[in-house]
């Protein structure tokens, strides 16, 4: 046991800085995944066929290429005029990738909202777009909070790919570095695991809380 505490003590600032880089990656990815995902879902349920197709193409592309490949493209593969920083490229990749799944989850939530709700909204004089925005999406998002929670937990874990791929000093990379320095591999990755758990367990709590607070009584 002493070894575990010893490593944590000696490398505490390193762990903390890695933790916050991971937190930043996850935070930015979350914002991107959520906003792009909702837009994609909106595209996919719009009556206009060609708009639907844009949404469908997005989902197909981003669900079907490995995250690692996407990260490489975003950092190494783009023309030099659009060079992102490592962290930006990493968060963008993870966010766009997760957005495809968010889009599908929200879309299924949209279909769970009954036609009667749409009829009621349209009959008040709302356009299709406002109906989506004010009536359908708020209800859809509530029903998809649990699946979204799982998605963002998966996303947090996926973020561990970014460090190695793009040389970002996140929790995972820090743990690797410490393990190479000390040969205390178990100890280093144990504390990395604790860091990831801290984020995912908090996420679980937030999801539960949102679920009870926003639950629609039927």
């Amino acid at each position, binding site marked *: 046991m002493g070894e575990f505490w010893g490593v944590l003590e000696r490398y505490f600032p390193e762990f903390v800085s890695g933790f916050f880089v991971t937190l930043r990656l996850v935070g930015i990815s979350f914002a991107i995944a959520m906003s792009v995902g909702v837009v994609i879902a909106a595209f996919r349920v719009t009556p206009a066929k060609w708009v639907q197709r844009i949404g469908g193409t997005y989902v197909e592309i981003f669900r079907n290429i490995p995250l690692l490949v996407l990260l490489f493209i975003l950092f190494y593969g783009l023309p030099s005029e659009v060079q992102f920083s490592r962290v930006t490229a990493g968060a963008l990749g993870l966010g766009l990738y997760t957005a495809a799944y968010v889009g599908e989850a929200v879309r299924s939530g949209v279909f769970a909202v*009954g036609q*009667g*709700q749409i*009829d*009621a*909204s*349209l*009959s*008040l*004089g*709302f*356009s299709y777009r*406002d109906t989506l925005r*004010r*009536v359908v999406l*708020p*209800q859809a998002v*509530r029903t998809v909070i649990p699946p979204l929670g799982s998605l963002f937990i998966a996303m947090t874990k996926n973020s561990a790919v970014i460090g190695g791929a793009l040389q970002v000093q996140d929790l995972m990379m820090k743990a690797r570095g410490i393990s190479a320095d000390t040969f205390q591999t178990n100890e280093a990755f144990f504390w990395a695991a604790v860091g990831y758990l801290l984020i995912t367990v908090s996420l679980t709590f937030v999801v539960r809380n949102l679920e009870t607070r*926003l639950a*629609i*009584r*039927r």
Partner: protein
Amino acid sequence: MAGATTNGHLVELESVTKRFGDNVVLDGVDLTIDRGQAVVVAGPSGSGKSTMLRCINGLETIDEGDVRFDGTSVASAGKGIYALRAEMGMVFQQFNLFPHKTVLQNITLGPMQVKGLSEEDAKARATKLLERVGIPEKAKSFPADLSGGQQQRVAIARALAMEPKLMLFDEPTSALDPEMIREVLDVMRDLAREGMTMIVVTHEMGFAREVCDRIVFIDDGKIVEDAPPNEFFTQTKSDRAKEFVDKIIHH
């Protein structure tokens, strides 16, 4: 001034045909409804009653003919359909209140977002309407906490909050327990007495007899009877309507 038709017709259906695939649901329907009239629409299940209402406010598109509301074609309104719908209230069998909003928010949403009313004005209007439908104390409740009859009265208030020229009711009491039917019909009767133009799909023939100016009977997508209640019940012309009246009277 499209609205300034000299005749009193608020709603005009002119040989309206509506198909779902090969299924002809409305088959050359002609119908005119004057301002201030309350018209009951009856007919067997699947005869096209709901579809006819939905064609009037453009929730369904039509295949042939024309639907005019206040002198404006609904069928060719394009984006103007939203403004037209804002002038027609609709009440559904399943209430269709917004479950994520309170009763008050259900009623203020349309006036604020569609008509641009201030929150204060919209709330004042909603409060008055809740009093009118007899449940002012439910303003802060959620729909799920209301009885069916209360939900339907909120749905009526929500539609009225847009100050519509026409109210469409699609079997507003069919999903209600018997003891709650009265409270909803009473609200509708008062509305009719105040001069609201309304089209009511219902099997409540007591209501029809007491409140409405005309009964329109639809069978298989065609209007087979269109008469004042007295005449409808005593001098029924078509066989299907006769059958229907007999059933009701011997019920």
